């Protein structure tokens, strides 16, 4: 590392979403001299080439960018891109209904959500988060759904009893009540003259 300026330039290129032109760098670092900046950039370029690390600083169309060295591309392609299975709001809602209202039928879930839930229930079944508990003994014998063991595992729950209840979540917003407030007589203690030495800074 040549200088503080080199490090600053490096941090800018590192965080940029695309290649950063010399002009843009000079604009961002207007307290520095353009000559110093171009000199630092050239120095960084040489440093990275000499270093032979996993990536280097290259000048591509439009600017400077860190790029991995082609020699290592076969290793980089081993990365498996894991798309974290994000839950859609409707899947989350449906799962919540099954979790909190089980045993529940599809009709009951749909009644609560006001929309068709067949597709979502099917995908929850495929993900093994929801399971079929049995059939309800009413005309049509609809399937009854409940949550699975995997559901407990994913949410790190010991058992269904450990599901936080609605009441507990609502209680987080509740302002505690202090009935004592009215009874507490502070006045007799406050007869001291308040002599300007209040605890204010």
């Amino acid at each position, binding site marked *: 590392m040549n200088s503080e300026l080199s490090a600053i330039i490096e941090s800018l290129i590192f965080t940029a979403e*695309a290649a950063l032109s010399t002009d843009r760098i000079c604009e961002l670092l207007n307290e520095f001299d353009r000559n110093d900046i171009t000199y630092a950039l050239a120095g960084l370029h040489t440093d990275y080439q000499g270093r032979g690390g996993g990536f280097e600083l290259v000048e591509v169309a439009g600017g400077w960018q860190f790029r991995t060295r082609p020699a290592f591309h076969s290793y980089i392609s081993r990365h498996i891109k894991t798309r*974290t299975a994000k*839950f859609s709001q409707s899947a989350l809602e449906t799962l*919540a209904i099954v979790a909190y209202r089980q045993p529940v039928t599809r009709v009951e879930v749909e009644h609560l959500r006001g929309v068709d839930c067949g597709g979502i229930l099917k995908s929850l079944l495929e993900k093994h988060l929801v399971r079929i508990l*049995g059939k309800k003994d009413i005309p049509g014998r609809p399937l009854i759904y409940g949550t699975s063991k995997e559901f407990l595992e994913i949410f790190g729950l010991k058992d269904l009893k450990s599901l936080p209840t609605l009441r507990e979540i609502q209680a987080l917003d509740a302002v505690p009540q202090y009935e004592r407030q009215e009874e507490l007589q*502070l006045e007799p203690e406050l007869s001291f003259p308040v002599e300007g030495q209040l605890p204010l800074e």
Partner: protein
Amino acid sequence: MQHHHDEHLPLLDGFHEQYSVHLDKFDGPMDLLLHLIKKNELDICDISIAVITRQYLDFIKLMKELNLEVAGDFLVMAATLLQIKSRQLLPLDDHEEDAAEEADPRTELVRRLLEYQQYKEAGMVIGARALLGREVFERTAAEPLLAAAQSVEGPLEVSLFELVDAFRLLLQRIPAESFHDVAPDDPLSIADCINEILSLLQERETVQFDDLTRGEFTRERVIVTFLALLELCRLKLIRIFQGSEHGSIWFVPAVAADPSEV
């Protein structure tokens, strides 16, 4: 501000705004107490309750005069301080004198203050760290090679809080009559009890009625458990039997756990 109170400025003369800013600064009674102790240069382990109590109450009075809402927590602490003070004033009996050392009414308060001080400082240390996205940044540029990389579905990323919150929002949206048991002060719901029974049946083959009411044998609990069992029985999810007259009530799952067998 330091010089202001050194000059003994009259309290409420047009300084409401400045003061209220400082009043907001205290994150509760413990924070205020610590401030008073520091300001009076007292040793936490040997605080003068008389001095601290007076200043604490002055402070609450000021808050009231400024029409600031005094949180209940501050009043609870005021009561605690007054109680400690009154216990200190009570003359000790002869036989109590020996134990006076340990029975210092301040002990519990001092312990809480020391502990609180630790976490307050820990909070400042954590807060002074360089935060990702504020002082420290990761690389955001997309790696072109990764676009071609194999893409697999990773583990589910959803928190328990999000699940409950989704349910809470849903219930806010739908009319109350769609729901029979959401009364917030309903301490025991049949649905919760059904969940509990289903959970137990996932773990073992047979469950006894007594297992469900163990540890919480109240009339309400028994009734709710019984109603839950009846509901499960009606849904044909369990079968109930009784060994003998007045004997234990047992139940077993009536359906296979494996959906493929249904």
